[in-house]
């Protein structure tokens, strides 16, 4: 998946290097894959198997958990909520970030540095600091302006889109900076306005960066727990909160929990692994400077 030049090492590597590499990478492989194996194998076990002492090999394979997960908890409903929230947050975040990054990359204006520093520094705010105030603000907006933000998907969407915004802007500024300005100029000579130059020249030239930013934004929204647990209600609940419901019963159906976890993970993991080289390329261009 990675397209790095497959050159031989400049010099023969000593045996010690080969053995270190083999041992370290094998240990890491086991460390990384054990939970994945547990998730997969336990999701195919029957209930007795997960209630007794752990078994590496299931005594019998069953797809029953994959059928039951949809009934124990309204998983499909949560899944749709997560999908709507994450996709909307991703699209909006990318659009907002592209405009902002273009301004920062192509214009010199008073307040430019203040803007970048402020936006980046929001990354370090502990979420817990603005969780309650945000909750109160959302409630007040609902009361005074009639825009329902508390407990709704809209509220969650605008919250999540700002979470990925600082990183997205930062990465895209780096990307846009690497696109020669002569291309913008050429587009302007051809009669495009600044926005035309952005949409016809800069955006098409930075597709890898934009994909990377989109992947990041989607993963951020899909995996967030803290704000989801306070800003949603039963109708707008997302997977991050909904998945806990398998465990609140007196009995934990671990086989179902694992099956549901797997089902929930598949879209993001597959998406990420397919698009990972864009993320690496984006990081190389944007973040590493």
């Amino acid at each position, binding site marked *: 998946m*990675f397209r*790095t030049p497959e*050159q031989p090492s*400049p*010099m023969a*590597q000593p045996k010690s*290097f080969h053995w270190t*590499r083999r041992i370290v*990478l094998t240990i*890491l492989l086991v460390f990384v*894959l*054990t*939970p994945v194996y*547990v998730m997969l194998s336990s999701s195919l076990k029957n209930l007795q198997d*997960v*209630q007794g*002492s752990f078994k590496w090999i299931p005594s019998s394979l069953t797809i029953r958990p994959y059928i039951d997960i949809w009934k124990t908890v309204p998983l499909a409903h949560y899944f749709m909520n997560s999908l709507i929230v994450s996709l909307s947050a991703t699209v909006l975040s990318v*659009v907002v*970030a592209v*405009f*902002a990054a273009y*301004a920062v990359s192509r*214009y*010199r204006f008073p*307040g430019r540095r203040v*803007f970048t520093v*402020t936006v980046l520094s*929001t*990354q*370090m705010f*502990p979420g*817990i*600091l603005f*969780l*309650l*105030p945000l909750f109160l*603000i959302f409630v007040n907006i609902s009361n005074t302006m009639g825009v329902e933000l508390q407990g709704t998907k809209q509220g969650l969407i605008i919250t999540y889109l700002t979470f990925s*915004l600082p990183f997205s802007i930062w990465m895209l500024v780096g990307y846009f*900076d690497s696109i020669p300005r002569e291309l913008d100029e050429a587009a302007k*000579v051809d009669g495009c306005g*600044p926005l035309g130059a952005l949409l016809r020249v800069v955006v098409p030239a930075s597709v890898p960066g934009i994909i990377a930013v989109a992947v990041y934004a989607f*993963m951020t929204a899909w*995996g967030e727990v803290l704000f989801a*647990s*306070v800003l949603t209600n039963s109708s707008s609940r997302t*997977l991050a909160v909904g*998945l*806990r419901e398998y465990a609140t019963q007196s009995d934990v159906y*671990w086989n179902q929990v694992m099956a549901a*976890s797997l089902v*929930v993970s598949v879209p*993001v*993991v597959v998406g990420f*692994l397919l698009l*990972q080289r864009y*993320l*690496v390329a984006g*990081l190389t261009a944007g*973040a*590493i400077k």
Partner: protein
Amino acid sequence: MTATAPPRSDPEAGPPSGKSAAGGRLRPRIPDRLRRVGLPYLLLLPALALELLIHIVPMFFGILISFKGLTLFFIRHWDTAPWVGLDNYKLSLQFNKTIGKDLLHSFWITCAFTILSVGISWLIGSAAAILTQDAFRGRALLRTIFLVPYALPVYTAVITWTFMFQQDTGLVNHVLHDQLHLTSDKPFWLLGNNSFWALLIVSVWKSWPFAFLSLMAGLQNIPRELYEAAAMDGAGVWQQIRKITMPSLRPVNQVLVLVLFLWTFNDFNTPYVMFGQSPPDAADLLSVHIYQSSFVSWNFGTGSAMSVLLLLFLLLVTAVYLLITQRKRGDADV
């Protein structure tokens, strides 16, 4: 990052010769000027408005609340909550009373947890990135697998680890007790002192791939010729790693360590999914501690004061860190 941009000619500031020929001819002069000056601000407006609404305004609001006696009683009309001055801060910082003592304990736990987690994640990430720098059979697959913990949603990964750490049905005790006979009985991992180590393992598992990813990107920027030149001079692989790879990665490391530190120190998802609202003492990280003080004990004023203290601490650490690393970088550049 972007501050080092050379003084290049601003496309909008140049002589207004051919530019306005297409569209601006019929427009009066002043709006055109305004349009040109205003455009960058217009482009920034959505980002700015959202950051203000979700981050900046709530932050100042939070600081305001930290001076108020905001309890559940006042939640419907927060503005009627009494002004209590610095009482919330005094309460949080009186280390001989219960609230202050618990906060201090939670602070030390979080510090130890963060230092260990960031240190180990960085170490593993560096090792993996350096060891996969040169091509070998299966490298692409290995790199992909290494990124799986980063790609998995936090809560599914943590739930799976919670299952593995179960006392009677988990994999960890099965391996330690049943298979390797290392322990005389099955220990509890999610209660008592062991919970710290359980939390640390989960945290490392899910943060090292980010270090790996960033360092891998950094490694791709190191010119191949450097290694070739070093090899000509007779430097072995280990020496090349020490003399070329590590120094070249310094700028990446500077950002990476800071980002990992902030993420880990503020981490809420991992402890919350593992332990719920009331974690064991040994794994009482600050963000969950503050969450509990606010949303479980319904004392929002004190919770906000603790959040502000946390923010001040993070600002201080970040400022000192940047100061030290920038100076070092400056020295190295000379």
